[in-house]
């Protein structure tokens, strides 16, 4: 097992995915957060509460949560590229106990997800505090609370990356899996929020669980208001964290169990 993890780390570090992942974390964390703080949510279209309000701070942190499709896509790429480039067969020749390969991938990419989350949260914190200070805007939440929320987002990225690994192992086709992951997380879930009846499911979907971590209800509330539907009630943060962990574990289980019996052709 130690050999397999070492191999997966070498595999990850040898491609540009790793550099791309860290660059994305920096751009999305520092770049996106810095840009949002600089412009100010009150100048968004439609306008949102300003940074000097709790809702305003939670909103831009919540928007950061929507970048979770990036680590999820990276996890999906990790597994599907093995099938796309035909190396899955070579890998399973070296390690016929296939669950060990997937477990090693989960461990490695869990670590990569953590690094992504740390860079994302770290650069976001630096950008938010830096820009707010430069603009002379007092944040609507204490610094400790902001850091706590960012840490939750960072950790949630690990869960999303593992969900990506699971979807990749399930679908195997790179294009299909990437479309499914990005399409669902980026477009599908926000669209679900708009469908009356279905939107009640939103709190228990991965996006709802992520929103629960930061208490980010602004988007859901705005949609409900626009459509005149019942407001979405998110789970408490702890329940959201538990649910997201559940999704990650389920995805990990799929990743480990599924390749066992399938033919590699």
């Amino acid at each position, binding site marked *: 097992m130690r*050999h397999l993890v070492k191999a997966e780390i*070498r*595999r990850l570090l*040898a491609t540009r995915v790793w550099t791309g992942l860290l660059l994305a974390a920096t751009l999305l964390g520092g770049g996106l957060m810095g840009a949002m703080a600089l412009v100010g949510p009150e100048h968004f279209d439609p306008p949102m509460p300003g940074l000097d309000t709790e809702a305003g701070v939670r909103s831009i942190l919540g928007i950061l949560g929507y970048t979770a499709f990036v680590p999820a896509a990276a996890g999906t790429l990790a597994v599907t590229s093995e099938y796309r*480039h*035909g*190396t899955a067969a070579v*890998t399973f*020749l070296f390690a016929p106990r296939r669950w060990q390969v997937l477990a090693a991938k989960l461990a490695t990419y869990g670590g990569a997800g953590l690094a992504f989350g740390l860079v994302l949260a770290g650069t976001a914190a630096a950008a938010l505090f830096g820009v707010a200070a430069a603009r002379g805007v007092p944040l609507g939440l204490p610094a400790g609370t902001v850091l706590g929320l960012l840490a939750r987002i960072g950790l949630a990225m690990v869960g999303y990356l593992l969900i990506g690994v699971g979807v990749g192992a399930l679908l195997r086709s790179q294009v299909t899996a990437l479309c499914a992951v990005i399409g669902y997380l980026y477009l599908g879930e926000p669209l679900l929020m708009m469908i009356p009846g279905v939107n009640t499911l939103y709190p228990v979907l991965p996006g709802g669980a992520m929103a629960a971590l930061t208490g980010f209800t602004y988007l859901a509330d705005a949609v409900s208001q626009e459509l005149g539907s019942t407001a979405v009630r998110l789970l408490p943060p702890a329940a959201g964290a538990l649910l997201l962990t559940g999704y990650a574990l389920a995805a990990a289980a799929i990743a480990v169990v599924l390749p066992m019996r399938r033919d590699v*052709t």
Partner: protein
Amino acid sequence: MTGDRQKIEVKHLTKRYGEVTAVSDLTFTVEPGVVTGFLGPNGAGKTTTMRMLTGLVSPTSGTATIGGRPYAQLRRPSRTVGAVFDANACHPGHTARDHLRVYAAMGGYPDGRVTELLDLLDLAGAADRRTRGFSTGMRQRLNLATALLGDPRVLLLDEPGNGLDPDGVRWLRGFLRRLAGEGRTVLISSHVLSELQQLVEDVVVIRRGELVAAGPWSRLAGPPSVLVHSPDADRLAAVLRDHRPDGDAPRVDAAASGRPDGHAARVEAAAGSRTDGDAPRVDALGGGRLRVHGLGAPEVADLAAAHRLRVHELVTERADLEQRFLELTKELTNELTDELTDDTGIAA
């Protein structure tokens, strides 16, 4: 493990995909110490069989073992078996060295082994280039290097000659022969039969997932024929046709194939071989040329001299693998296949 002679045994192996039977009740053995060619037309089931041997594809029924164990139960599989099924199996963003280092780590081999193999497979100059820029031949060599990381006793190669230039093919031939000479088990499939003809000692021929023939190529090919060029071709043909060999006619047998273990006795299909006492077959090729089956060149020369007939050229020709392969896969009926295999018991 090093020094072990590992036999591949396939018994009643069957694979069905829904209604389609890819491999049907296949039974054969691959011996260590020789290069065995795995032949069959496209879609015959060669790749599926090789993948079942290595556990990548699960058989519907039957067993495939290497050294008596199913692949998945080998303690350190890459030490026992090296396999190349897809020449392009490498991440385009990885360098050759990266690729080998990943699998070296996976198999628990030192990085020094990576350098050794890069040198051995003539990839040292391209070691730090990304594989997206590699030719098919370079990728083929990279995958061969991957398969050799564990210095395995068994080598399974699916179409290893693909993408190799003539020098590469010659090198591969020598390399595989050397590995077999070290007592390793080498099974290779190829559709370029002329490549195999100069390499393989044993063959396994399958068609539509069923065994057609298996055994030493020398026996399967039958005795060589003799090409004669004579201005007296018509008269010589009559003399040769009337001749009855005394039973000492040259035959390719176990001793002649250099296999002291009586390996040739396990020939499972030798359609077309003559029995002692049969009349020689003489085909007139036109232009004063004859092809003689069932007599050796010395006998043809002696008979011609005895009858004062002129001979301008006398060439012994071994059977052509491609021709024989086409005969076996196209002309043999299923009944003949059954009869042949029943006779020898290779496919119960």
